[in-house]
Structures are given as C-alpha cells and as structure tokens.
C-alpha cells in the first residue's frame, strides 16, 4: 500500500477514526495491528521477518541489564547477527555471489554458482537499522529496555515510517508510544499541510520527472549531452521529491496520530558544501551512520589518515546500504571522497555561522553551492544508472558533448524547479517546514487551493512506487 494510492486514502481515515475514539491502550493495539496490515498489503509472508526482528531484539534487550559484560556482548551479537543476517540474505546474497563469480572469472577460475530467486522485502534496511540502534543503545546503557512488547512492536513496525523511514531512535519514539497521546488542532493542521507538501513533491515533481528519467537512463546512447544533463537534473528532482515527499507524508500522518517523527530532509539542495548537504539529506540515516558506525570506528579521533579512512568506510557502507550493487558503492565512494576533500579544505575552521554555511560572502556561498550540486549531480549518475559501465558512458557523453536523436524537453524541468523553489524557499527562510500556517488566511487559502489544483491537474495519475521502497 503506497501513500499515493486510493487504498491508503481509505486506510488512513479508517485508522484515524478508530484511533480517535479508543482509549490509550487499545490505541496501541490498533496501531500495531494496522501497521502489520499495512505491511502485509505488500506481501503478508514478510510480516514474519518483522515479527522475528521484533521478538529477537525485544528478548535480547530484556536480558541485557542483568547480564554480565560478556553475556551482554553475546546478546548484542545475537541481535546484530539476526538483523544483519536477514538483511544480508535478502539484500546482498545474490550480489555477493555474483561478485564472487566475476572475481573468479577474472582470475581465470570459471565458477558456476547457484543463484536464488530472492524477493527483497520492502523497507528491510530501514527497520533492521532501527531495531539494531535500539539494541545497541540498550547495550550502551543509554536507554532502558522496553517492557511492553506491544509498544516495542509499534516501534519496529510503525506504519507511517516502516517502509522508508525516517530511521527513528528509540529515545525519541518509544516514550511517545508509551505515553498517553493528545492531538492538538495545530498538530492536525500542520500534519495535513505536511501531507499536502509531501504529495506535491511526490506526485507532481517526482512522478512526472520519472518519465524523463526512465527515458534518458534506459538508453543513454540515443540521448545527446544536453538531454543527458537534463536527465541528471530530472533525476536530482525525482529522488529529492520522492524521498522528501515520502518523509513529509510520513511525518504528517504520524502527527495526525499524535506522534512526532524526526525531520529527515532540511532543504538539502540549498547546501553550500557537501558536509552541510549530508546534514540536510536523509538526516536519519546520516546521523545513524555517524553514531553507530563512524564514531565507533574512531571518528575524528587519532590521526587525520584514520579520520579520512573512517569517513570513507562510513560512506562506502552507506552506499551499500542503499542497494546491492557496485554503482551504489561508487556513489558512496564519491561522497566519501568529496567529504574528505571538504574536511581537508576546511581544516580547523568551523562553519561560519549558525545557518551552517562555510562562507562569509554571498559569492563564496554561491561557488560552494555550485560545486556541491555538481558533485551531488555527478554522484546521482552512478546511483541511477543501471550499471557502472552505463554510468561511465553517460559521463563520457556529457563531457564530450555527444549528439543524440532523442530530445528531452526543458519546459517541464523549469515547471518542476519552480514548484520545488516555491516550496523550499519559504521553508528555508523561515526554518519552518509548515510555514504556510503562519501566512495570512487569504494567502493560505490561495496556496491550499493552488496545491490541490496542482495535485489534481499535474499529478502523474499513476501509482508510482517510492524509490526508497527498494532499499
């Protein structure tokens, strides 16, 4: 069940109607049941994995406080092995096998290994990372283990963020699930505004951009350098609209339930450096990687070489998290190199001000922004291209100004960019994602009507799945 489908448009009001009339305890049971129903609409068989992950982490965490240090480490190992085992099998098994075969062939040792037809369970990377974070936090003594399995079950399977995040932290989400919730009129209003903004990003920007992206990346040899460059821009809009749109809808729906989810995107395409970009893009994943990978690897401690190594390893694994393919690893690698170069360029300097820009002058900020966007766009080619060789071909065709017969239009790109800026600029200036609510009522009325008309008239009209569902 996708957020942008009629099924969800029926499901969500039904859940809300029942939720609002129930007392707190049955509310949690309802949340858990509806979350499992939501997930089973995609494929009921994989609810077993969700349940397994929930039971293992709940049990392991419950035993941890009373266990000896050695036992605690063993319990943590059980949790990590279970979660990474599930993730590894369903997501990386065939990739590892394929890479092994290729390596053996390169060494002149032909190998015929078997491959399995494995379906990737939707959202597996998100919920396994979320449950692992919980067990690690209990292991570190940062949080108490959750006693109520229903509460913990919701933490793992909470439907607004189950399939594409944000990857929530136990410290943030569990207390909200445990507590008696209230929903204020402000929450309802801002939740609805977030849903509308999310739908605009997804249905109007991302889904329409997808048409041109698919055209460009399916056969780049037919497209000239200008078309390819436009294709990269279209994809930049698509992935941002798609993922930020999902996060907005998830936060909006959750707000209607009285639960606040963390902000996952903070106008990343306005970032004036790659470091700032990663503080604004997929915040829940980048902070997860920082807290549970980069810092445990040593972080900035030790020599500069170690810090660069840690950064690179984190980004490579971050790339691999997105998908089982070398193109994702290379995407992570490009960002790792860019972050390393920026770290080196920055030296001991801190960002110039609280708004996180490295530059004191407008010209400097503009140059920083242009360089950042060039790096991000270049990396997107590897992220989206079906294979590494096609990605290289695209880069080569753009750099050599190659001709092509397929024409890619510019007008929709301008339209999408205009809409994106119309949403992002007010948010950036005010620092408020629901700044619409602060505007005078007549402006609000016009904006709401325009947003609805845009959704109706310019929505793609097809149920295009969210890109991050595949991760």
């Amino acid at each position, binding site marked *: 069940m996708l957020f942008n489908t009629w099924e969800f448009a029926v499901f969500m009001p039904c859940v809300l109607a029942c939720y609002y009339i129930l007392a707190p305890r049955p509310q949690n049971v309802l949340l858990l049941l509806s979350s499992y129903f939501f997930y089973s609409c995609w494929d009921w068989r994989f609810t077993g994995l969700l349940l397994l992950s929930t039971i293992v982490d709940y049990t392991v965490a419950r035993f941890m406080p009373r266990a000896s240090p050695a036992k605690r480490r063993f319990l943590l190992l059980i949790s990590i092995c279970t979660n990474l085992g599930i993730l590894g099998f369903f997501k990386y098994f065939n990739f590892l096998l394929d890479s092994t075969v290729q390596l053996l062939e390169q060494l002149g040792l032909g190998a015929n290994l078997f491959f399995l037809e494995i379906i990737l369970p939707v959202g597996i990377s998100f919920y396994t990372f979320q449950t692992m974070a919980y067990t690690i936090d209990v292991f570190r003594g940062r949080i108490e283990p959750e006693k109520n399995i229903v509460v913990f079950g919701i933490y793992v399977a909470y439907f607004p963020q189950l399939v594409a995040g944000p990857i929530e932290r136990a410290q943030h989400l569990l207390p909200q699930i445990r507590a*008696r919730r209230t929903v204020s009129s402000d929450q309802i209003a801002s939740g609805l505004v977030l849903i509308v903004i999310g739908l605009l990003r997804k249905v109007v920007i991302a889904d329409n951009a997808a048409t041109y992206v698919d055209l460009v990346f399916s056969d780049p040899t037919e497209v000239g350098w200008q078309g390819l460059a436009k294709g990269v821009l279209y994809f930049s809009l698509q992935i941002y609209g798609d993922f930020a749109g999902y996060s907005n809808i998830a936060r909006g729906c959750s707000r209607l339930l009285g639960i606040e989810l963390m902000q996952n995107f903070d106008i990343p395409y306005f970032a004036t450096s790659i470091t700032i970009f990663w503080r604004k893009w997929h915040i829940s994943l980048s902070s997860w990687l920082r807290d549970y990978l980069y810092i445990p690897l040593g972080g900035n401690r030790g020599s500069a070489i170690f810090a660069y190594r840690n950064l690179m390893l984190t980004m490579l694994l971050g790339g691999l998290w997105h998908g089982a393919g070398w193109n994702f690893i290379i995407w992570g690698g490009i960002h790792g190199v860019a972050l390393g170069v920026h770290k080196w360029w920055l030296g001991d300097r801190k960002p110039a001000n609280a708004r996180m820009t490295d530059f004191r002058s407008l010209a400097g900020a503009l140059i920083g922004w242009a360089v950042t966007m060039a790096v991000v766009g270049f990396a997107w080619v590897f992220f989206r291209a079906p294979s590494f060789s096609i990605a290289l071909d695209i880069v080569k065709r753009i750099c050599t100004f190659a001709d092509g017969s397929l024409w890619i239009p510019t007008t929709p790109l301008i339209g999408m960019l205009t809409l994106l800026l119309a949403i992002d600029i007010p948010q950036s200036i005010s620092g408020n994602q629901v700044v619409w609510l602060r505007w005078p009522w007549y402006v609000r009325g016009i904006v709401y009507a325009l947003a609805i*008309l845009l959704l109706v008239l310019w929505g793609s009209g097809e149920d295009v799945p969210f890109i991050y569902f595949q991760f």
Partner: protein
Amino acid sequence: MSRLSIFSFNTLQPWKTFPFGLLTCLLILIGVEVVVARSDWIVDRFSVSSLGIMPALEDEVIRKASPEIICFGNSRLRDGLSPRILEQQLGMPKGSVLNLALTAGKPYDSLVMYRRNREIFRHAKIMIIDFEYHYFGRAPEFTFRVGRHATFEDRVRLFEGREQLMPALIGGIWHTFGIRDYLRALMMESSEADTLVIADDGRIVWRDAETDEQINIKSNIKQHASKYETDQLDSGHAQELQRLIAMAQQDGIVILLLHVPVRGEFARYLKETYPKKYEQLHRKFTKYDFDVDLILDPERGDDVGILDQSYFDYGHMTDDGSKQLSEWIAPHLKRLLEKQSEKKP
C-alpha cells in the same frame, strides 16, 4: 477515561480559530468547478477537441436535422462514409444522413450521444454502427468523454472491479478531477479556439493534409497492428454496444453493424504477424451474436474495390475511398429502408 480524550481541547477551539484559510480554499475550488469544469463555455470554445466535438455536433448538426440514417463509430467511419453521397444514392433530401462518428470514438461515446439526443434520433430509421475488432480486445478507458458525461451508474458499470473505479466515481462528483487530463491538455496545447468544420460531402473535417503527407505507411501499419499484441480480451465495449443496440431497437430503429474495411496491406500484415490473436478477436466478436438486422464485415478494402491508394494510412480513407464505400453500402441501406418503411413509414 473519556472517549475523544486524545484531542487537546486547549488548542482545539474552533470558535476561536475559524478556518478562514480552508474556507477560502474551498471557495476557490468551487469557483473552478463551476466556472471551468461544469460549464460549457470552455468546451464550446474548443469544438474540435475530443471533448468539445460532441456538444459542437449537437449544436451545429444534430439539432438542425431530422435524420433518417445516423452513423456512429470512430475516426475510420468518420472518414469512411459520406452523408451527401449516401443521400444522393438513396434519393433522400440533404440532412437525412448524419455521420456522427468521432475521433477515438468508442461504443460508450455513441451510447452517450444517442442518450443525449434521443428525442431527435428516435425518428430515424437506420443506425449504422461501426465496430472494430480491437474494441473487443480492450476494456473501456477513462477518456475525456467518460469523465465529462458518464453518470454514476455508467461509472460503476464501466469500471467495476478495476483500478479506475475510485477516480471515476470521484470524478463524477468533482468534475475538475474527472476531466483533469482534458484541462491539462487544454492548458498545454490549445491557446487558440477552433471551430467545427463540416466538408461539402457532410463528413467532419479533422485530418490535416500536412500530417497526412508525412505518414510513413510501413511504421503506421506496424504501430497500429501492435494493438493486437498488447490488448487483452475484454467484453467491456461489447456490453456498451449491446446497450446502444437495445436502446435504438426500443425506438424501432434498424441496426446495421459495419466493419469499415482496412487497407489490404494492413490486413495481410495482421494475419501474418498476429494470426492467433486476430482469429481470437474475430471469434470473440461472433460469439456476442449481436441481434441486429445486418452485419457487413468486409475485411479488407480490396474486398469491396477500395484499393490501398484510397487510404491515408492503415485504415482511414481518402475522399475517393469514402465515395467508394458509400456507394458500396447504399444498396444494402436501400433494402433495409424498404423493409423499414412498413414498420416506420
């Protein structure tokens, strides 16, 4: 614990925070619905568009005539039958034959047109309905005309059990949503109004000579034949056709089902490339056993003396082709008229 305790009544004070913004939004949406989506001025302004053609035909042709023969169908019948030639052949006064076939017309469009103008049409004697084999290989689509004209009952019937049901039902209440594709197309493509043009031989002028010159016959044939590959067998259009037939028969009208013959080259290509599907669709059509007075099913143009040169493309006829088909069908119509004169003088 009280029910509805989830709401924080400290902030939920509707009397203090009246939602003026929402009200403004609603008023704007109602304005768009009334002024654009539910009014005819925008449709009338673009009378040659897929949507505007129907009311334009009603104003310019149907309400000015007292037809004896009416023709419904798609663009191939639109181009294939000439009312003036038929009138000459049958010795009828001008305006007795109406060719109301529409571009991309489907049985449902004909049903709607008949329903809207039944008072005029019920006096007719013969109805010629075009049928295409690929009608029987396709489910009804959510077209502009469905979005604009379908009743609630139609929407349920056409899309029951299909993904389009929900948008079709919502579109029935909220027309801005129902004809969104049309409004978008208007904004994107049409900035200048156009008017309906009827040629001297009574056919709607739709074709553009410049475009016709550029047609590559080989690829055109290939492209249209591919529908035989992709279309799934479905009975949706056949059911609409049955409804139209039943409604006309209630009014005492004789029905002639006509398959407008396709270009010989196209028919041969179809049989060679998709022999199985072609056979299936033919069989499917005969299975319906339409209770009509006459079925004329010339497969190819050359079966009735219309050579490939008399076609623009895979199946649309030139003036010459239209003349030949009209002359070929006239004797059949004469016989039906004679039979009908006893029942409906």
